[in-house]
């Protein structure tokens, strides 16, 4: 049975390198991906916080959206997302969400406006692996007659994250030091055209590096040859993003959660909150005005037992008020952390709650996120 599953799993251009590095490979979003290398999740996590971690995120969907003549690509894309795309300056990028008609989140994604004047009719998109087919079909259908979408299947995506990421990458591509946080552009390195963005999903300074698939292994090996860099699997990627308070699609956000409920209101600009014009904007505007019924919050359980996804959250009187959507043991804090949705009445920082772990209530508190200070490069 497992053989058939393995047979249909897709492989990224770095598959052979992962295996050679001794990775434990697991199925994730239809790909065979490294969950950890021999160092293990805990060491890989701490290494990323201390030095630089290299992640294969080639399973994510990269695409170039190109306007048809006479169409403003940013204005057209704003019909699908609540983010302020029109205000993006050349080379600037933004986190936003694709929404359905109820304001539910179809996916979260990164949108970059290219730098060059001749590319101002384009947007570079990076979406989640597990959603890329649906996202791209949705965007194509919604922007039919306005824009075309080119899936960049011939490119791999590497993420280099950590306090020494800039130093490491600058040895190979010196100009990257000029990039500020949430900016990206094309770089030529030797014969390869790279798209390097200063962003990431760990709470650290770092970069996402889009490389031609046939050059991916060589770039990964050159980065891993640097003394500060180590390969990091999806296991540590998950604990790193959770410490940073960042959502994992399909767990912390999905089609039933709006950006307001998901505590992603910061990703909707003042203009867009007022003007609307995105899917579900009436519902979202009402939630902004009246407050959502439930909210995604950070949670610190007492003791050492992690509360995992699906754990029921109770108030002090043991009435059900929500559930955990992600939970792990934080290697940085050496303590369990979680996030989940609670009734708005219990969402204030410091609110005491109980978590039903293996049939017993476990005391916990609502806490602000991120769980650790962010160290982005501004």
């Amino acid at each position, binding site marked *: 049975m497992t053989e058939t599953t393995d047979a249909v799993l897709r492989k990224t251009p770095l598959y052979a390198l992962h295996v050679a590095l001794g990775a434990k490979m697991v199925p994730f979003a239809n790909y065979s991906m490294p969950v950890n290398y021999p160092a*293990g999740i805990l060491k890989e996590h701490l290494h990323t916080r201390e030095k630089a971690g290299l992640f294969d995120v080639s399973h994510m969907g990269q695409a170039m959206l190109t306007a048809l003549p006479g169409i403003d690509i940013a204005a057209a894309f704003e019909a699908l997302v609540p983010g302020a795309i029109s205000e993006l300056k050349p080379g600037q990028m933004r986190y936003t969400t694709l929404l359905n008609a109820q304001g539910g989140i179809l996916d979260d994604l990164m949108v970059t406006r290219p730098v060059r004047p001749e590319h101002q009719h384009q947007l570079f998109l990076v979406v989640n692996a597990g959603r890329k087919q649906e996202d791209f079909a949705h965007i194509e259908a919604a922007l039919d007659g306005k824009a075309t979408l080119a899936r960049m299947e011939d490119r791999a995506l590497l993420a280099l994250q950590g306090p020494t990421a800039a130093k490491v990458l600058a040895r190979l591509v010196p100009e990257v030091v000029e990039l500020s946080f949430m900016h990206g552009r094309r770089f030529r390195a030797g014969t390869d055209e790279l798209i390097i963005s200063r962003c990431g999903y760990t709470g650290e300074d770092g970069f996402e590096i889009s490389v031609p698939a046939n050059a991916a292994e060589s770039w990964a090996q050159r980065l891993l040859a640097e003394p500060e860099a180590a390969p990091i699997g999806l296991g540590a990627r998950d604990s790193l993003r959770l410490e940073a308070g960042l959502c994992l699609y399909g767990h912390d956000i999905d089609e039933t959660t709006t950006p307001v409920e998901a505590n992603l209101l910061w990703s909707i600009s003042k203009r867009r909150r007022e003007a609307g014009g995105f899917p579900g904007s009436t519902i979202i505007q009402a939630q902004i005005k009246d407050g959502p019924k439930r909210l995604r919050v950070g949670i610190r359980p007492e003791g050492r037992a992690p509360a995992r996804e699906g754990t029921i959250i109770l108030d002090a009187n043991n009435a059900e008020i929500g559930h955990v959507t992600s939970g792990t043991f934080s290697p940085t804090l050496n303590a369990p952390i979680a996030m989940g949705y609670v009734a708005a009445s219990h969402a204030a920082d410091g609110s005491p709650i109980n978590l039903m772990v293996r049939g017993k209530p476990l005391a916990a508190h609502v806490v602000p996120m991120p769980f650790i200070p962010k160290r982005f490069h501004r």
Partner: protein
Amino acid sequence: MTKIFYTKDHEWIRLDGDIGAVGISNYAQEQLGDIVFVELPQPGTKTAQGDEIAVVESVKAASEIYAPVTGEITEANSALEDAPATVNEAAESDGWFFKIRLTNKAELDGLMDAGAYQSFIEGLA
């Protein structure tokens, strides 16, 4: 000479008279990865073979530990509560979870000895 037996769920039990120390195999700790939490049974707890009796959690997930035999818990290795990584470092010695007084030694006949368990995990690879 003490005898060690293994279950298909990767618990081991090392016998000393009527009492057996129970833990998870070295293979199991390798599969789980970094262990960050263990939940141990209270001494005095009575359990039947195959019942969930303890929990071990890695960064990634929780796993149940099943009682390899029927009996009564006599002691829990409380040192693991503050140092769960001991299970990674010494799964089949210092990383024991609890001790159990066996009430039906015949159950041991259904478990594997070290050689049989080695063949069993090689078959899983």
